[in-house]
């Protein structure tokens, strides 16, 4: 590590590495700093149960493969990343033993839905086809560009007369919840439950007003869920390789304690050990707004008013995820396979949400700081990635919607509750797949508190690094002053998942910050060849 670089990127999650790679490929001298012992941020794969069982501790679902420009631009496949797109992408198993499956083949999905409602199956087919038609436009407008305002978007939709041309897109979606959208277009409770569940695991909570505006995009990629073979961390390795091959430097175990500001301009960083490194052109932070503006710079530098806004107005999700990682000696055999054999091949499975009402009731419970009766979703990656477990064994993941902080005991109460709740989640799974009794070799929990402890840029267990709501979207995310990736400090940019579009492996925040930095720094945008 030298004492000066053109650009310093704070945080080596996928956004930091993406931004660093593009800048390095542009000929800039780039340093990426990571406080943890390894790159990747949420792309962490660890043997938390037994040796040889590769558990994706955080990011598991890669839904923007071949949709996000960096996948191609940074040649991640040539750096060793291999994705598989499961044939049976997702399923819901209901309390009455029936099941619905979502396939990579639309016709098969429609066949599954038609067993519950032929009308809904046809509606879904039209929704999928419509959304798939304009997914490039949506991605280009809503994901991989610095954001527009909701007002601008709705004005454009009106000007193009989209409401008259589309069965599903409408200006009024900005006031509607996903529940309302589903109620308008679908009739069957179970189909609606599955579609709402799909929104929820994408962090689009189905009862939040305004989130219907993003729902067509979610449907457009409902069959684009991929597993990163060998664990999600492989992607982090690939991005690091790309950075290194183009002259960039990654330093791990290098926690930033200060962003150095001179005459209102970011000029470098100081590490925990006192080392100071200069940034000739820019500093980009991919960690949380709170860390960046409350820990790394003084309130006087950004102004007391802005500092207070960061403290009080940055919004976080009001629910988080509780995870159980399992080493298995057998694959789950679901009783619902008698109804639909494909559930045994489904990658991500909703266990027990039969209607949006049950889902809504759980959100209400969670928002009160209480634990709902477990209805986890289960994902056995080994079904499609046999490299993630020893021969004859399998890796499993249960994810349960949960509060970060308990009404009684705060977040600290997770210390005592983790194993107990993990056991309950396992029992909930075994209720649908009784053959798992005796088939669990080992298991480990990852509580919401663990999320925040491990990934300190995810306060409140907020795996999306910011609430997904209409007033925390687009150019309002995470605050209007930061919505365009620039900050009150000249030369300091925000490029992590606090920013538009949001968390998940979208590459979007890093890619979009790049556009703004390129404009400001006079970098030729080689990546946007039309």
């Amino acid at each position: 590590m030298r004492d000066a670089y053109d650009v310093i990127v704070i945080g080596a999650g996928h956004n930091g590495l993406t931004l660093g790679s593009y800048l390095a490929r542009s000929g800039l001298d780039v340093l990426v700093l990571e406080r943890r012992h390894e790159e990747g941020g949420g792309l962490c794969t660890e043997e938390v149960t037994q040796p040889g069982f590769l558990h994706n501790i955080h990011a598991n679902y890669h839904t923007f493969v071949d949709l996000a420009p960096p996948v191609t631009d940074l040649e991640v496949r040539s750096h060793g990343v291999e994705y598989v797109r499961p044939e049976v992408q997702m399923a819901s198993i209901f309390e009455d033993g029936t099941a619905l499956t979502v396939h990579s083949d639309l016709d098969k999905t429609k066949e599954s839905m038609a067993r519950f409602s032929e009308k809904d199956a046809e509606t879904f087919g039209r929704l999928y086809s419509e959304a798939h038609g304009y997914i490039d436009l949506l991605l280009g407008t809503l994901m991989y560009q610095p954001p527009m305002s909701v007002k601008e978007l709705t004005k454009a939709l009106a000007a193009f007369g989209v409401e008259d041309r589309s069965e599903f897109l409408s200006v009024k979606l900005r006031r509607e919840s996903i529940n309302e959208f589903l109620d308008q277009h679908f009739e069957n409770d179970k189909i609606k439950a599955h579609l709402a569940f799909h929104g929820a695991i994408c962090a689009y909570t189905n009862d939040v007003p305004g989130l219907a505006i993003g729902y067509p995009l979610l449907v457009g990629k409902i069959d684009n869920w991929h597993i990163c073979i060998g664990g999600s961390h492989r992607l982090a390795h690939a991005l690091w390789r790309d950075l290194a091959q183009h002259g960039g430097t990654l330093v791990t175990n290098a926690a930033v304690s200060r962003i150095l500001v001179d005459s209102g301009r970011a000029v470098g960083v100081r590490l925990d050990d006192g080392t100071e490194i200069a940034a000739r052109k820019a500093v980009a932070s991919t960690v949380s707004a709170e860390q960046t503006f409350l820990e790394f710079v003084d309130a006087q530098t950004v102004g007391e008013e802005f500092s207070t806004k960061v403290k009080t107005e940055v919004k976080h999700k009001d629910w988080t995820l509780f995870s159980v990682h399992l080493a298995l000696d057998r694959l789950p055999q679901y009783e619902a396979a008698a109804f639909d054999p494909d559930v045994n091949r489904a990658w991500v499975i909703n266990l027990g949400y039969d209607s949006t009402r049950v889902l809504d009731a759980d959100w209400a419970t969670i928002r009160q700081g209480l634990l709902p009766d477990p209805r986890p979703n289960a994902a056995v990656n080994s079904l499609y990635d046999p490299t993630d477990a020893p021969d004859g064994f399998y890796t499993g993941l249960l994810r349960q919607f949960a509060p970060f902080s308990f009404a009684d005991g705060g977040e600290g109460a997770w210390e005592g509750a983790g194993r107990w709740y993990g056991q309950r989640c396992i029992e909930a799974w075994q209720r649908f797949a009784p053959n798992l009794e005796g088939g669990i070799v080992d298991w480990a929990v990852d509580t919401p508190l663990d999320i925040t402890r491990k990934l300190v840029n995810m306060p409140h267990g907020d795996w999306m690094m910011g609430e997904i709501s209409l007033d925390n979207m687009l150019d309002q995310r995470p605050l209007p002053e930061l919505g365009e990736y620039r900050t009150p400090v000249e030369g300091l940019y925000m490029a992590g998942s606090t920013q538009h579009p949001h968390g998940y492996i979208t590459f979007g925040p890093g890619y979009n910050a790049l556009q703004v930095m390129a404009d400001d720094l006079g970098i030729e945008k080689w990546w946007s060849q039309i």
Partner: protein
Amino acid sequence: MSDIYTDDWYKSVRETINEHVAGLPAKAVPQGEWHAVVEIVGDGASPYVGADDVRRFLIKIENGSCAWYREIDTPNPEVTLDYRFVGPATTFDEIAAGMRDPVDAALDGTVKVRGDMRFLMRQAELVKVLLEAYTTNVETDWPMGKPPYSGAGAG
């Protein structure tokens, strides 16, 4: 009237579009220069583009008006492109014939649009005026027949 995709036809298109732009309030017309390529891909149904051919037209937009256009034989011309529109020949023929709405063609993914979508969305009113001018005000001759075509591959 001019035969479709001939120089005279493009001249008519350009004049029609520019007349409409000239009638717009100045604030509705963005200032600057943009280059776009329209790629008309032969689909076996349109008689105006060979089944395995692609006809490409490079267009320069200057302050909202079409400054010039020319047919090119490479997908990557010397200029830096701001937009690329790609679609089957039949779809472009149908748009020119006023039988198909270009916004619909983009929304259903038949015509792919690459470039700064944010700018296009922000200029939605202007884009709409230009498309309307193109689809309704240019008189066209169809020497080899007019869509709808009966062949396969029609977009």
